């Protein structure tokens, strides 16, 4: 089907111009490449599985089994987050399926089986099949049968967990207001996943001093690591490993891990079925969301803007405030530096942040993250309005006002968290050269001035229908727009960074930095205005296409 969609998107139709066909084709190519790449990955994992099985059978290699252990653990983690990352799997289909004369158990089985199509689960299959084959090659037939049963139980567990996670998420989202809160919380948690493992490791430094290997080993494990070690034996991936490895030494040793794995699979399937049935009983969304007037703030006109541009800017800001994706754009830049500060405090972060200007470094990091976090909204700024874009085109709003309004609206979205981040950083780690603190907002402003026209142009060239309630790929801008937007952001940062280096390192006069960057800011403003001239023409020419994205 993906192939058919790609071919259709490349075909010339009356309502799709060449640029749009190119844009759609690029968007569809990503998943196809991913599927193609899965074939060699599957073969490689199958080989690893056989090697691990053979290694256990002959008692020669431990490493492949350890790889499997971590792969299965990673797969489990992805299984829990899968329904959040891929929220389109089954939410709307449930209602349609209810119209058909299909028993609920059959519906559940079909929904649960669909989880096997998730890449991380699909890739587990060759691995779990490979292990018993490897054991059989090593002539350990009884252990091979045990491994086969353990693998089946593990897969049953994973499939049940996916179904449970998916149904639970949809049950939570059924109430719209509660759903907004849940998605916002998840959206804040997800970017931190990469940092969380840092809290499991022992610190590298204590009070700024790097610890020796022996000193580090002598430290007690972190509280999180201790907790993880206590839970580990009950994790199904560990139970699978125990069943295979201990079953090889003596079959009776495999009984406990195998039984715990089977029980876990049964429980999770039962819970998954219960949650699914509950979802079927009332699949519609409940509740209405109301919005406050904020003392008439939204009716005011932003100084320096026309009423139309101001209305567009406030509409963009409200869109961010009222969608989980938008709230994440605002929340992430505040939370990330706080986490970084926490890591720095624990000694997990070396010199850059612990040097004299740690607060300034945190503020700089947070401010630029604020612009970076804008990418899903700014690089798809027209299509995210959905039918609202058509409304704007039906009103006496000029393209200039639309572009100015969008640019200012995006700036307002980024400015709030950037300011909070700078203040928090200053409070948490005070100190540093005041001139550099002054230069920071100027550098951020000059960067944004150059990113804004690029964002408008990329949004016009690569529009994408998105769901800002989703935090997975459904809420992202077009891949090409995201990538080029990131590059434009990095390129826009360079002049400010070079000027700072010139003042601080080469001239050795950091106090000159704000003056240098202020001049650059004025130049960037001029460049931005010039760049917006062709962008205005581009957007005017793309109105027909953009009005279809809802």
């Amino acid at each position: 089907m993906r192939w058919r969609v790609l071919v259709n998107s490349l075909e010339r139709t009356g309502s799709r111009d060449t640029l749009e066909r190119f844009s759609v084709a690029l968007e569809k190519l990503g998943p196809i490449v991913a599927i193609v790449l899965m074939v060699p990955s599957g073969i490689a994992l199958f080989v690893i599985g056989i090697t691990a099985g053979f290694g256990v059978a002959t008692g020669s290699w431990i490493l492949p089994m350890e790889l499997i252990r971590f792969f299965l653990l990673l797969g489990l983690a992805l299984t829990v987050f899968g329904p959040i990352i891929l929220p389109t799997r089954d939410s709307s289909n449930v209602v349609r399926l209810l119209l058909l004369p299909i028993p609920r158990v059959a519906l559940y089985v079909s929904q649960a089986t669909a989880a096997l199509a998730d890449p991380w689960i699909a890739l587990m299959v060759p691995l779990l099949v490979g292990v018993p084959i490897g054991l059989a090659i090593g002539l350990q037939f009884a252990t091979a049968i045990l491994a086969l049963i353990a693998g089946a139980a593990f897969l049953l567990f994973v499939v049940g967990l996916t179904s449970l996670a998916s149904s639970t998420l949809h049950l939570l989202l059924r109430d719209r207001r509660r759903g907004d809160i849940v998605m916002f919380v998840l959206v804040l948690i997800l970017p931190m996943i990469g940092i969380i493992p840092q809290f499991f490791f022992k610190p590298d430094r204590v009070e700024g001093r790097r610890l020796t290997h022996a000193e580090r080993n002598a430290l007690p494990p972190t509280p999180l690591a201790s907790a993880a070690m206590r839970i580990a034996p009950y994790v199904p991936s560990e139970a699978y490993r125990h069943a295979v490895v201990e079953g090889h030494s003596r079959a009776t040793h495999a009984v406990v891990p195998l039984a715990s794995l089977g029980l876990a699979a049964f429980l999770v399937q039962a819970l998954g079925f219960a949650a699914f049935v509950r979802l079927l009983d009332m699949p519609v969304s409940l509740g209405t969301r109301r919005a406050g007037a904020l003392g008439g703030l939204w009716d005011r006109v932003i100084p320096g803007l026309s009423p139309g541009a101001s209305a567009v800017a406030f509409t963009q800001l409200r869109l961010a405030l009222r969608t989980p994706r938008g709230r994440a754009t605002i929340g992430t830049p505040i939370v990330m530096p706080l986490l970084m500060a926490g890591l720095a405090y624990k000694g997990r972060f070396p010199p850059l942040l612990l040097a004299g200007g740690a607060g300034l470094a945190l503020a700089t990091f947070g401010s630029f993250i604020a612009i970076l976090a804008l990418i899903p909204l700014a690089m798809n700024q027209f299509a995210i309005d959905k039918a609202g874009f058509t409304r704007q085109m039906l009103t006496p709003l000029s393209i200039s006002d639309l572009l100015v309004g969008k640019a200012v609206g995006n700036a307002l979205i980024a400015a709030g968290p950037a300011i909070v981040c700078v203040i928090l950083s200053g409070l948490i780690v005070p100190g540093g050269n005041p001139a550099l603190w002054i230069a920071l907002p100027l550098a951020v402003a000059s960067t944004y001035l150059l990113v804004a026209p690029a964002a408008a142009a990329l949004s016009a060239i690569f529009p994408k229908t998105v769901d800002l309630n989703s935090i997975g790929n459904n809420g992202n801008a077009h891949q090409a727009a995201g990538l080029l937007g990131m590059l434009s952001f990095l390129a826009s940062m360079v002049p400010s960074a070079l000027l700072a280096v010139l003042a601080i390192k080469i001239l050795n006069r950091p106090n000159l930095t704000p003056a240098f960057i202020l001049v650059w800011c004025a130049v960037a403003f001029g460049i931005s205005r010039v760049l917006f001239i062709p962008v205005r023409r581009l957007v005017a020419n793309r109105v027909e296409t953009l009005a279809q994205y809802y």
Partner: protein
Amino acid sequence: MLTYNCLLMEFAVETRGLARTFGAKRAVDGIDLRVATGSFYGFLGPNGAGKSTTIKCLTGLLRPSAGEIRILGLDPATSAVEIKRRVGVVPEDLALFDRLTAAETLSFIAQVHGIPAETFKPRSTDLLSLMDLTDAATTLVADFSHGMRKKLSLAAALLPAPRLLFLDEPFEGIDAVASRQIKDLLQSFIARGGTVFLTSHILEIVERLSTHIGVIASGKIVAQGTIDEVRGGAHGRNSLEELFIELVGGERPAADINWL
């Protein structure tokens, strides 16, 4: 070349040879429309005949492939913003921001049209009350039913007190009470010199409200004029339904599906 006098405008909408192609398909095929100022113009046609494409061309959402358009005497190619100041539109997809409330939607329209707060507030109150949306004024549009969305889209079109209204299926999904109120409102709008360009599949409504009709089939205008004029050209058939079916060539034998 069309020539106009804005003050003594005979036609609120006039097109000559208007065409819009999508690749090889000619969705609108050189139509000449004439919508008299102060008229209630019903624009009819079967599914896929080109009604919505025509409205999109007239409201500036689609660029014509060929032909000329004049809206209230102005050329959309050069006076698009000026035209949009005087025109209200309820498009096919309703064109509403999901994440604004009903009150905020109207406020957005007021700001873009430059309507001062003292004028906007009573208008907004009147329209929300007329559309029975007062209680839902602070609810997000995302949580509205289709009928509520349609009413809000109509309120948004009426807010700037336009001189010309384009309404694409405005009564579909609207309850009988609101429908009656809206019909009365539109008739009073016409009585005050406004012009309505309406598409609808509910022929009874078109017949009851319209002073003029235009019928489009396969992208071409097959009949245009007052209802009586069009009737005269269709062998004196009485009901608009019979007239419509004859004009668009839709008379087909009843389906014989005995298994049903």
